[in-house]
C-alpha cells in the first residue's frame, strides 16, 4: 500500500517535471524561433515563392540549370574545404598557444587578431595589394635585390589569394572558439593522465582532444560556412576567373536582373548549408563530458623548456606578421603622401601627412550626404551595440534550448545556422519585398539593420555558448538550489561566471559582425545614417588620390574603433 502510493507520487512528480521541462524548452525557444521565422524564413520564403513561379514559367530545363550550377557549386565546395583546412592548420596551434601559455602582450595580440574580421573586403584587398601586389612592398624589394624586371610574386587573382584572405579573416574564429575552450580546461585532467603514466601525446589525444572536440567542430562549421558563402573575397581577391554560388547569385540578381535563376541558385546554396549543418549535428551528437571549467586561467603557464619557448615565439611571430602586415600597410598608406605632382614627375615621392584625416572632417562639396567621421562611427557603434543586445538576448536562450534534447533539436539547430549560408543579396531583396508596410517598414523601422546583423551573429553566439553550457555539470546548480538559492540566483552565481569567457567571445563576435557588415547595410540603411564601411566605399568609388587616402584613413579609424572597443569589452567582462 505504502509502496504503491510512493510509486504513484513519483510518477506524478516525474510527469509534472516532464511538463515543466517541455514548457521551459518552449519558452526558451519561443523568442529565437519567432525572430528567425519573421526576419529570416518569411522574407526568404517570399522571394522563393516569387522566383520559383517565374522560374517554372521560364521553362528552363533542369539540364540547363545544372549547366549553370555545376561549375560554381564545385568551386564553392573546393575552395571552402581548402580554406577551412588551412584555417584549422594555422588556427589550432595558435589556439593551443593562447589556451595554454602566459606571455606578454597576450591580450593585445588577441584583440589584434579580431581586426581582420571587421574590415570590408575592399580594404583588405587594398592591404594585401600594398603588400603583395604587382607593385607591393615585397615585389619592389625583390625586384630591387635581384635586379628583376618583372614582379616575382603573382598573388592577386589567384586561388592562393582567396585562400590567404579566408585564413586572414577567419583565424580569429578558431582562436576564440577553440582557444577559449582550451583556456577554460582543467589542467589537472591532463596532469592526472600524466601521473598515471600516459605520454604527453597520449594525454593530449585521449584527454584534452575529446573534451575540445565540440569546440573544434563548432569552429570548423562556422569557418566552413563563412567560406562557403564567401562573396567579396572571391570577387576582389580571386578576380574574374573564379565564381562561387554567391558570386553567381549576385551577377544573376543585380547585373542581369534574372531573379528567378538567382532565387533557385540561393535555394541550392541554402540546401547545401542545411545538409552541412545536419551532417555536423551527427558528428557532434553523443554525450558530452561535463566538467567544471577553470575560471581564472589556472591552466595557463609561461613557456619553460627552450623548445617550448621557441615554438611559442615562432607561432606568435607568424601570427603577428600575418595579421599585422596587411593592416599596417593600410595604416601606413593613410599617412603617406605619394608623388606630389604625378603629372610632372615620374618617380614616386613619398612624405608623411595627416591631410587625409583632416580632410575627413570637411564637407568640401557641401554634399547632402556628407558624413562626419564621428557620426559614422557613432552609427556603427549604435548598430553594433543593438546587435550585441539582440543576438545575446536571443542566442543565450537558444543555446540553452539546444542542450535540452528532444528530436526537434536537430532542426532548430539547423535553422539557427542557416542564415550563415543564406545569400545576402537574396535575403536583402527579401527584406525589401516583405517589410514595406509600417510598422515593419525598411525605411522607417530602425531595428532592421541590427536584426539583419543579428542573423549573422546568432550562429556565432549559439556555437560559442552551446558547448560551454552543455559542459556545466547540473550538480553545481542543483547544489546551489539545495542550499536555498532561487533559480535566477543559481544561474547568476553558477552558470554566468562559468559562461563568462564564452559570453565574451559571443559578444565580441556580435560586435565585429555588425561593425564590418556592408551588404545588408547598404541595401537597408537610410543614407543619413551611414556606417563606417559605407563611408569607406563612398570614398573608394570616386577617382582621385585624396579619395583613396581618405578611404584608407577611414579604414584605419574603423580598426582603431574596433580595437579599442574589443579591448574594453575584454577588460570589463573577464
Amino acid at each position: 500500500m505504502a509502496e504503491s502510493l510512493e510509486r504513484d507520487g513519483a510518477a506524478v512528480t516525474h510527469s509534472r517535471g516532464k511538463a515543466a521541462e517541455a514548457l521551459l524548452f518552449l519558452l526558451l525557444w519561443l523568442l529565437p524561433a519567432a525572430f528567425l521565422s519573421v526576419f529570416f524564413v518569411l522574407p526568404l520564403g517570399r522571394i522563393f515563392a516569387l522566383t520559383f513561379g517565374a522560374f517554372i514559367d521560364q521553362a528552363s530545363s533542369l539540364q540547363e540549370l545544372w549547366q549553370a550550377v555545376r561549375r560554381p557549386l564545385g568551386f564553392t565546395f573546393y575552395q571552402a574545404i581548402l580554406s577551412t583546412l588551412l584555417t584549422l592548420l594555422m588556427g589550432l596551434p595558435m589556439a593551443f598557444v593562447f589556451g595554454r601559455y602566459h606571455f606578454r602582450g597576450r591580450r593585445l595580440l588577441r584583440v589584434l587578431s579580431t581586426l581582420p574580421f571587421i574590415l570590408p573586403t575592399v580594404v583588405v584587398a587594398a592591404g594585401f595589394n600594398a603588400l603583395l601586389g604587382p607593385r607591393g612592398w615585397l615585389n619592389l624589394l625583390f625586384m630591387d635585390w635581384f635586379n628583376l624586371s618583372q614582379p616575382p610574386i603573382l598573388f592577386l587573382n589567384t586561388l592562393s589569394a582567396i585562400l590567404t584572405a579566408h585564413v586572414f579573416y577567419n583565424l580569429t574564429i578558431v582562436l576564440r572558439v577553440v582557444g577559449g575552450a582550451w583556456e577554460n580546461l582543467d589542467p589537472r585532467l591532463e596532469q592526472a593522465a600524466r601521473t598515471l603514466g600516459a605520454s604527453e601525446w597520449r594525454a593530449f589525444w585521449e584527454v584534452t582532444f575529446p573534451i575540445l572536440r565540440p569546440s573544434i567542430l563548432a569552429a570548423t562549421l562556422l569557418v566552413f560556412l563563412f567560406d562557403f558563402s564567401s562573396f567579396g573575397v572571391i570577387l576582389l581577391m580571386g578576380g574574374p576567373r573564379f565564381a562561387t554560388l554567391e558570386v553567381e547569385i549576385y551577377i544573376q540578381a543585380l547585373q542581369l536582373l534574372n531573379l528567378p535563376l538567382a532565387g533557385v541558385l540561393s535555394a541550392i546554396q541554402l540546401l547545401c548549408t542545411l545538409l552541412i549543418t545536419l551532417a555536423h549535428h551527427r558528428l557532434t551528437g553523443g554525450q558530452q563530458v561535463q566538467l567544471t571549467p577553470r575560471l581564472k586561467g589556472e591552466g595557463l603557464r609561461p613557456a619553460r623548456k627552450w623548445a617550448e619557448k621557441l615554438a611559442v615565439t615562432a607561432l606568435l611571430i607568424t601570427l603577428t606578421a600575418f595579421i599585422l602586415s596587411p593592416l599596417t600597410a593600410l595604416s601606413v598608406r593613410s599617412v603617406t603622401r605619394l608623388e606630389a605632382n604625378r603629372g610632372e614627375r615620374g618617380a614616386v615621392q613619398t612624405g608623411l601627412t595627416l591631410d587625409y584625416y583632416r580632410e575627413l572632417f570637411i564637407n568640401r562639396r557641401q554634399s547632402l550626404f556628407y558624413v562626419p567621421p564621428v557620426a559614422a562611427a557613432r552609427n556603427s557603434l549604435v548598430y553594433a551595440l543593438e546587435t550585441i543586445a539582440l543576438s545575446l538576448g536571443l542566442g543565450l536562450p537558444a543555446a540553452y534550448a539546444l542542450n535540452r534534447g528532444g528530436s526537434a533539436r536537430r532542426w532548430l539547430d539547423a535553422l539557427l545556422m542557416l542564415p550563415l549560408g543564406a545569400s545576402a543579396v537574396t535575403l536583402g531583396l527579401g527584406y525589401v519585398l516583405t517589410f514595406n508596410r509600417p510598422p515593419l517598414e525598411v525605411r522607417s523601422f530602425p531595428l532592421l539593420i541590427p536584426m539583419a546583423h543579428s542573423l549573422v551573429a546568432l550562429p556565432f553566439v549559439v556555437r560559442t555558448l552551446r558547448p560551454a553550457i552543455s559542459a556545466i555539470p547540473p550538480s553545481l546548480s542543483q547544489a546551489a538550489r539545495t542550499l536555498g538559492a532561487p533559480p535566477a540566483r543559481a544561474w547568476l552565481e553558477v552558470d554566468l561566471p562559468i559562461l563568462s569567457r564564452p559570453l565574451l567571445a559571443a559578444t565580441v563576435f556580435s560586435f565585429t559582425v555588425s561593425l564590418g557588415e556592408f551588404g545588408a547595410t547598404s541595401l537597408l540603411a537610410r543614407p543619413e545614417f551611414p556606417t563606417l564601411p559605407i563611408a569607406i566605399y563612398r570614398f573608394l568609388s570616386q577617382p582621385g588620390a585624396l579619395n583613396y587616402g581618405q578611404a584608407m584613413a577611414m579604414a584605419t579609424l574603423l580598426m582603431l574603433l574596433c580595437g579599442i572597443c574589443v579591448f574594453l569589452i575584454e577588460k570589463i567582462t573577464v
Partner: protein
Amino acid sequence: MNPLFVSKIHPTRATRRSPRSGWMILALIFILLSACAPAAPTTAVPASTSISPTPTAVPFSTATPPEPTPAEPVELVVMTHDSFAVTESLIREFEQTHNARITFLKSGDTGSALNRAILTKESPQADVFYGVDNTFLSRALDEGIFEPYDSPKLTQIPDQFKLDASHRALPVDYGDVCINYDKTYFASKGLAVPQSLEDLTRPEYHGLLVVENPATSSPGLAFLLATVAHFGEGTYLDYWASLRNNGLVVVNDWETAYYTNFSASSGKGPQPMVVSYASSPAAEVIFAESPLSEAPTASILAPDTCFRQIEFVGILKGTAKRALAEQFVDFMLDVPFQEDIPLQMFVYPVNSQAKLPEEFLKYAQVPEKPASLDPALIASKREEWLKAWNETVLR
C-alpha cells in the same frame, strides 16, 4: 559526477571582481550609449527636420501663444543608387519652396536599386526613382514601373538623350566610359597613345590595358558594348580574343582596376591604361593630394572608343504625390540642379543651358563620337553577350 572536478567551484585566487558585475557594467554602458546617441536610428529624426523650412520651434519660455503652424510639409521619397550626391542647400531650397520634405532611399548599386523598385512595384516605396541608365532602361520600361510625364523642361534637353519617346524615363545626366591613360608613362616611354580600338591589339601595347569584368561592373559592361557597337555582333568576339592575346588584364570592379592596376592613380599599378570615365582626369585634379596644374591622366577620345551612359529619372507608378513628384522631376532637369551635377557625381548635365564648372572645361573631355546601342537590343542580348565574352576572355 567525479567529485574531483566539483571540489573547487571557486578559483583559489581571490576574485577581484565577480564576472557578473562586469556584464552589468557592459549592460549599463549599452543602455547609456543607446540612450544618449542623438542620431541613433532608434530615435531617428530625419535629418531634414532639423533644418526644416519653417522655424516652427517656439521656445517654451516665451508667453506668446504659438503662431498657427503652416500645413505639414509633404514627404516625397526618392529612390536612388549609392552614387547619388547633391549639394545640400539645393534640396533645402526645394523643400522650402514646395513645403516638402525629401527623403532619399539609397539601395546599393544601380542593379539593386532597380531590383528594389521592380520588386515593390505593387506597393511602391518611393514616389520618384532616379538612376536607371540606358543599359537597364528598357528592362525598367518593360516592367512598367514608371508613369509618363511630359516635363516642360524637356525642351531644354537635346533629343539625342531622350531615349523614351513616351517620357516615362526622362534623361538627367550622361557620362562617357572611356579608356584613361597615364600621361607620364606614355611620355617617358616615347610611346604614342592608341587612337582606336584596333590599335589596342598592337604589340607595343602588350599588357598595358586593364578592363573590368562586364558581368560585375558597369563601366566594364559599357566598354564591352562599345566594342559590340563598333565591330558588330559578328566579330566583336574576335577582337576580344586578340585583346586577350595581347596581354589584356581583367579585374572584377572599377575600384580594383583604377586604384590597384592603373599606374596613374596612386603611382603604383602596373597598367598605364584603364577603362574609366571621361571625367576621371578632372576628378584627379579636384581630388589631388596637393594642387595640380595639369591632370596626370587623360582619356582616349577617338571615335567609337567610348560608350555613352545616360541616366534617367521617372515618376513611380502608383504614387499618391504626383504633383510634388512632377515638381521634383522639373527641379532635377532645371538649370541649378543640372549645374550641380558635375562636381557632385562627375557626370555631365543633359540640359543644354547648364554651364559646366571650370575644372570640367579645363580637365575633362567629351568624345565627339561615342558608341551607342539601342537600349532594347542591350536588354535582349545582354546575357548572351556576357556569356560569350566570358567564354572568350576568361576560359
